[in-house]
């Protein structure tokens, strides 16, 4: 049997009196990308820190490529392989590039620490910078490059050591929407090319669906489930979608073309929506689709297609804003970053045009 790329069993961690992780169990197939979604404070970063060896768990076991790298019980570590020996790449939320080093030196750091010959350093670093499209930035300091470029450099620094496991902690969360979308595509391409096991944590459901082959939901330190995307999509019903905070929209599936479907939602013009799961067999039927709030997009260009809806409410959080659109019976929640909300300059009562960027056909209408 092929060992899992990463396997976590009975993992628990408390910080003071707060239980951050509670008996987590999952296994991610070698070479696959797993995405774990959860809100802020769900324990996502702690989970990655434990897998990487930066934090010691109170209980449980972590194995990478079938080798146990950490095992704890009763708050004491029994096995603890040092972080640098686990061969894990880690891209942090704030990238953590060394500010006094150039981009080249940042990427070369791990190789130099391992006393690689300078010809190897030159070759591997150049290769990693080339792959991430940041070769021309090699002599710049982190303070001289943009957030998107920092993300690419951080990934280059992680992959240059050819890790068995790549951990990504919300690497796109600090970026604006357009950069995020470009990088999301690049990340997917990179993950496919690398064929390394990747564990990606995010609060963005849309991002998780796009990047993850397996998906998990982490809430208050508990993992609701962890399974392949196909399995999850096939099983997802109304209650799970509601739990995940998706918008539920009822309508009739008029047509399916490629990976998209045309929906007739009562009171709206027909809308075309990219569908995340198989839908060909349900043309002409009444369906319920689940739409992540991040996939409801407000269109700012005048002539662009979209459905007109009124802003009924605005809920502001720390770094994001939820805009409640439409009538009470057909309510849609759209989520944008605080920065983007300020750019949009919207108020309650305004009418906006919206499109649905992704939707998931639920397994049953009721």
């Amino acid at each position: 049997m092929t060992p899992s790329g990463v396997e976590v069993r009975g993992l628990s961690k408390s910080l003071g009196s707060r239980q951050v992780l509670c008996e987590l169990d999952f296994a991610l197939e070698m070479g696959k990308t797993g995405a774990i979604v959860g809100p802020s404070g769900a324990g996502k970063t702690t989970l990655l820190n434990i897998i990487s060896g930066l934090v010691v768990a109170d209980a449980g076991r972590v194995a990478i490529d079938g080798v146990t790298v950490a095992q704890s019980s009763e708050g004491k570590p029994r096995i603890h392989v040092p972080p640098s020996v686990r061969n894990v790449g880690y891209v942090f939320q704030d990238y953590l590039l060394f500010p006094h080093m150039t981009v080249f030196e940042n990427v070369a750091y791990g190789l130099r620490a391992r006393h690689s010959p300078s010809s190897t350093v030159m070759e591997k670093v150049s290769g990693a910078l080339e792959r991430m499209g940041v070769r021309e930035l090699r002599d710049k300091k982190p303070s001289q490059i943009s957030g998107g470029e920092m993300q690419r450099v951080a990934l280059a620094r992680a992959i240059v050591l050819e890790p068995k496991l790549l951990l990504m902690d919300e690497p796109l969360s600090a970026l604006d929407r357009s950069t995020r979308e470009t990088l999301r595509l690049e990340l997917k391409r990179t993950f496919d090319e690398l064929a390394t096991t990747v564990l990606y944590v995010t609060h963005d459901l849309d991002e998780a669906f796009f990047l993850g082959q397996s998906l998990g939901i982490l809430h208050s330190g508990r993992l609701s489930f962890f399974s392949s995307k196909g399995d999850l999509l096939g099983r997802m019903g109304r209650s799970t979608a509601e739990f995940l905070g998706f918008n539920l929209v009822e309508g009739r599936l008029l047509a399916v073309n490629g990976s998209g479907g045309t929906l007739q939602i009562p009171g709206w013009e027909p809308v075309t929506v990219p569908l995340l799961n198989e839908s060909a067999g349900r043309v002409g039927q009444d369906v319920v689709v689940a739409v992540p709030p991040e996939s409801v997009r407000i269109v700012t260009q005048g002539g662009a297609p979209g459905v007109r809806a009124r802003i009924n409410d605005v809920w502001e959080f720390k770094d994001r804003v939820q805009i409640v659109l439409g009538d009470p019976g057909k309510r849609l929640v759209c989520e944008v970053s605080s920065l983007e909300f300020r750019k949009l300059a919207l108020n309650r009562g305004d009418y906006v045009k919206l499109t649905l960027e992704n939707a998931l056909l639920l397994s049953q209408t009721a």
Partner: protein
Amino acid sequence: MTTVQREQRDWSAVLFWGCLIVLLLFVVIPVASIFFEIPGSSVVALAADPSTLSAIRITLVTSTASLFVILAFGIPTARLLSRREFKGKGIIDTIVDLPIILPPAVAGLALLLAFAPRSPIGKVLLAYGLILPGNIVAVVIAETFVAMPYFITSARTAFDEINPRLEMASSLLSPSKFFSFRRVVLPLASRGLVAGSILAWGRAMGEFGTTLLFAGNLPGITQTMPLAIYLDLANNIYQASFVSAILVVISFAVIAMTRWATRRR
């Protein structure tokens, strides 16, 4: 009837500028007096005086040696106090800072009682033929004693200011903690370390009371520039002024270098 309000004179600005001018004069006049005291025609003769040259040499040698000792012990100590929490840390902090407040006479006496040949440590040193009082090593010890806290305070602040998550990222990439320390921690703290070194070096050069009590004032052996001034004051005011002027220039340079080292770049 209309009333015209006369603009009030801003007396507070006059007061603040007045205080600043008084304070500046309070420093500048005495310092300038040193330079005015030196007869221009005797500068070459004063500079060539063997006792002055010897005092300059001893001052430079001992202050530089004490700086090396301070760096060797101070960097690990500052790092430990910055990053680790342990029982009794508050007391240790106070002990490390104590020489800043301790009167020089008390520090000198303390060193004398601890290292003089009649003390337990002194007896051990004596067995190896070393009597510290009257020896240049005592000058280095006295200077290290008083200057060490200046370096540790500055170095500790520099280590405190490093984002600990950068060290965390480094620990993932580097199997060697020493490599991380050398390539990440030290460069990031370098500004504070350089500033602390300059301050400590300057303090060591100006050391007087502790050295006088512990090492003595022996020309050519333990006589540093401040001690030479003290001796010259009684019989050669020009010589004392000349040596003082050198120290004023060095002090000015130390402050300028510290400012340069700590400025944001």
